[in-house]
């Protein structure tokens, strides 16, 4: 244990500095594309990015010294690339994103500081369920809630707007994990038989379905179908992992198809999304404009991209938020876009490795759920922007402009590192733990 400790943290530091250099060079290129002088604030940016990373790194050294070494550098790389892209599209948004990055790193450190044992979280499952629900409902509260781009997801306090749904997602995953770990035996076994299917008793499944149903209804009310879809998939996925019964996946798929049909007939904007997905060019000048402009962005980028600062990503509406990946694809090309996907893939791999190495069921399920948030959210938005699936507006983890999402993702990162550190520390005691648990 002690032999691997310095090596792990040293890799983290080295990889992280590489990520900082990538971000700083990206910023330099964007500025050079506008005028051929080295920007005077380059050193300020470089120093702040470096300081932020070093701060996070020192916190990990102190608070989770045995944790996975690649997660933090990967997050730094994506966050840095996201800042460069957002600042390139709108320097004003870039400044706000810089502040949010600092807030996010602070949230990361605070999470590591306060969540010393992941077990503690497990204990407060119903508290988190309650807080998560309240957070979900907040935007509907009169006076507090704000509607932006047709979705009532925001809460405005003074000049700051944030999306409590981003935090709610993490809390709901926490509740699901804790609850499922408790009831998984009962859910897996099932006592009643209907036809050939064994159905668990409703009282075991009830609270889960209730929490899930309410969350989805609320999100539908807020016309945040992307998040509803995401939560739906997360719940099905965690139920499957907890019980190892494929029947839950099938049930989730059936329900999903049913819900999609209902959503399609009930919501005009769902129909729009499907129509523009099937034939975007037919609506190129109206409802498909954004998608089509995004596709043109990818095409303009081609293999190697136009180069940072040299494309026209501003042609795409909302290029800094939902369509940030199209901006990446345009200026960094297929190479850059696939690099982002690989970074996300590595995060997913590291997250699931943490899950499989965890000893106790709760961190296993919790780590799987948190990783799945990042993976599914990335798939939903990148798939939507690239016309792989119908478009739903969610943020691209670590890259899109948006404070709440950024903070939530850094908190997820801290929780994963906490569990990773627990795994490494727990290893020598494994035998005794298993023995103690044995009946």
């Amino acid at each position, binding site marked *: 244990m002690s032999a691997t400790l310095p090596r792990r943290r040293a890799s983290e530091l080295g990889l992280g500095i590489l990520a900082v250099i990538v971000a700083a060079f990206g910023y330099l290129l964007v500025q050079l594309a506008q005028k*051929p002088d080295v920007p005077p604030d380059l050193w300020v940016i470089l120093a702040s990015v470096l300081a932020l990373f070093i701060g996070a790194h020192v916190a990990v050294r102190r608070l989770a010294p045995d944790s996975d070494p690649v997660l933090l550098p990967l997050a730094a790389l994506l966050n840095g690339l996201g800042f460069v892209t957002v600042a390139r599209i709108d320097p004003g948004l870039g400044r706000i994103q810089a502040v949010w990055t600092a807030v996010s790193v602070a949230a990361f450190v605070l999470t590591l500081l306060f969540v010393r044992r992941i077990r503690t979280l497990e204990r407060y499952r119903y508290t988190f369920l309650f807080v998560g629900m309240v957070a979900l409902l907040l935007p509907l509260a009169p006076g507090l809630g704000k509607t932006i781009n047709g979705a009532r997801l925001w809460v405005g306090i003074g000049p700051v707007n944030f999306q409590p749904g981003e935090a709610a997602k993490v809390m709901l995953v926490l509740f699901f994990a804790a609850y499922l770990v408790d009831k998984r035996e009962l859910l897996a076994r099932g006592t009643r038989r209907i036809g050939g299917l064994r159905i668990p008793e409703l009282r075991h499944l009830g609270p889960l379905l209730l929490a899930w149903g309410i969350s989805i209804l609320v999100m539908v009310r807020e016309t945040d179908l992307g998040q509803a879809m995401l939560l739906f998939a997360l719940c099905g*996925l965690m139920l*499957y*992992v*907890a019980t*190892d019964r494929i029947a839950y996946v099938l049930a989730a798929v059936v329900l999903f198809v049913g819900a999609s049909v209902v959503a399609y007939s009930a919501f005009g904007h769902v129909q729009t999304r499907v129509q523009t997905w099937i034939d975007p*060019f037919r609506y*190129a*000048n109206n409802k498909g404009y954004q998608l*089509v402009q995004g*596709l*043109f*962005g*990818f*095409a*303009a*980028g*081609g*293999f190697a991209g136009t180069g940072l600062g040299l494309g*026209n990503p*501003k*042609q795409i509406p909302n290029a800094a938020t939902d369509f940030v990946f199209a901006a990446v*694809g345009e200026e960094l*090309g*297929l190479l850059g*876009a*696939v690099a982002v*996907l690989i970074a*996300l*893939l590595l995060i*997913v*791999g590291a997250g*699931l490795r943490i*899950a*499989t190495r965890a000893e106790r*069921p709760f961190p*296993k*399920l919790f780590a*799987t759920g948190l*990783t*799945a948030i990042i*993976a*599914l959210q*990335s*798939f939903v938005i*990148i*798939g939507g922007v*690239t*016309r*792989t699936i119908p478009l739903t507006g969610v943020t691209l983890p670590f890259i899109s402009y948006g404070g709440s999402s950024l903070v939530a993702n850094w908190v997820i990162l801290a929780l994963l590192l906490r569990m990773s550190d627990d795994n490494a520390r727990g290893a020598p005691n494994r035998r005794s733990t298993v023995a103690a648990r044995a009946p």
Partner: protein
Amino acid sequence: MNPAIRRVGVALIVLLLLLVGQLTYLQLVDANSLNHNPHNTRALLQNANRPRGDIVTADGVVVAHSVKVSDGTVFKYLRQYPTKELFSQVVGYQSFLFGSTGVERTYNRDLTGQSLQLQLNNVGGLLSGNQITGTAVLSMRADLQRAAQQALGFQRGSVVLLDVKSGQILAMYSTPSYDPNPLAVHSNTLAQAAFTALNQNPDRPSLPRAYRERYPPGSSFKTITASAALETGVATPQTNFPTLTQLTLPQTTSTLKNFGGESCGGSLVDSFTFSCNTTFGRLGLQLGDQFVPAMAKFGIGSAPPLDVSPGAVPSLGPPAGSFQQNQPLFALAGIGQGDDAVTPLQMALVADGIANGGVIMQPRVVQEIRDSNDKLVQRFSPTPWMTATTPQVAAAVTQMMVSVVQRGTGTGAQIPGVTVAGKTGTAQTVQGANPHAWFVAFAPAEAPRFAVAVLVEHGGNAGNDATGGRVAAPIAAQMLKLALGIR
């Protein structure tokens, strides 16, 4: 739980790989078609924000230039056309909304400094970050263009004047024309309004009639019929034809009459000089299925490779090999009626072929590209387009065309001290409408320098009394005189 987590892992990886696949499709496989999608304005915006060189005439008049502006739009330059409607049908316009046309489009890479020659010339500039632009120098002359505009006046029609040896176009104007400036403005609303108004105008001023509209050529087409007859041996200049007032067409009961119901005939030279329909109708029949290939050698059926975008439309004749099914059509084709439909540019090229010993040159409006320092980058050398006929036939037809101007239907095109070769055309259109007046010519006949085609739609100001000789020949003479420098 671990096997389930691994399965979830595999599923998530498959999803992300699916995205890699779709990205590869978008950015490599489908990229080209997306880049050329008509809704895609990215390339245009990039172009719009590149410094763009001037377009100037051979006599140094700026017809298109860019002005640096900061009007709060995404555009850095405003394209302006100081000569307004005078050159719009050749130079075109560059618009963010509607794309670009004309020379602006054909020579886009040269104007924006992207062509290989310009890049090679500016290796030093590339390193220092200086963006270069190219200047497109037209072969066209503003004075000749203005003369064509004035000669046509309010009459609808076209004038095409070209340099015989090089195929360079010196003037190409048609009325009505339009001012391209409102289309190039940065306000989408204003540009759209101008575009809509232009396209809804029933006079179709945006149509470059000189190279994109086809008309029946009438007797001006007899230049081609005579060349075909001489080349195939169907007739010689001295072959005698019966004097008739009308020719009964085979396979029908209808007849082909001479202009004004006159009787004419005699030698081929006389028939040509006085534009005798019965003789040329008969030649059309005698040529039969040899006629269409002979027309093809003059470029009928092919689009002239004009360096303007969109290009020239091809001129038409009767279908090849259709003589047996439809003989009267070939008699009509012999006098430039029936299926014959030609652009004014094509008729100027016919004159060019006769004047140039049988070889038609490729028509061009741009003669060279210069860089921002006025250094020559590229000069476009004259290229033959078609071999229309032999030098001997061309010489014989030239003699007949000289005769037209000296003693025939085209005396209106005489220039003191210069031998002009020409051919009139008075083309019937639809029942009740006045005929189109044509004149194709070149001068001097002994050593041809300039060729011209003039078309005045529906007789112009002369109305029903119009003939090619009365309406079009004087305009042709005026253009030739100016080009030759005769005051």
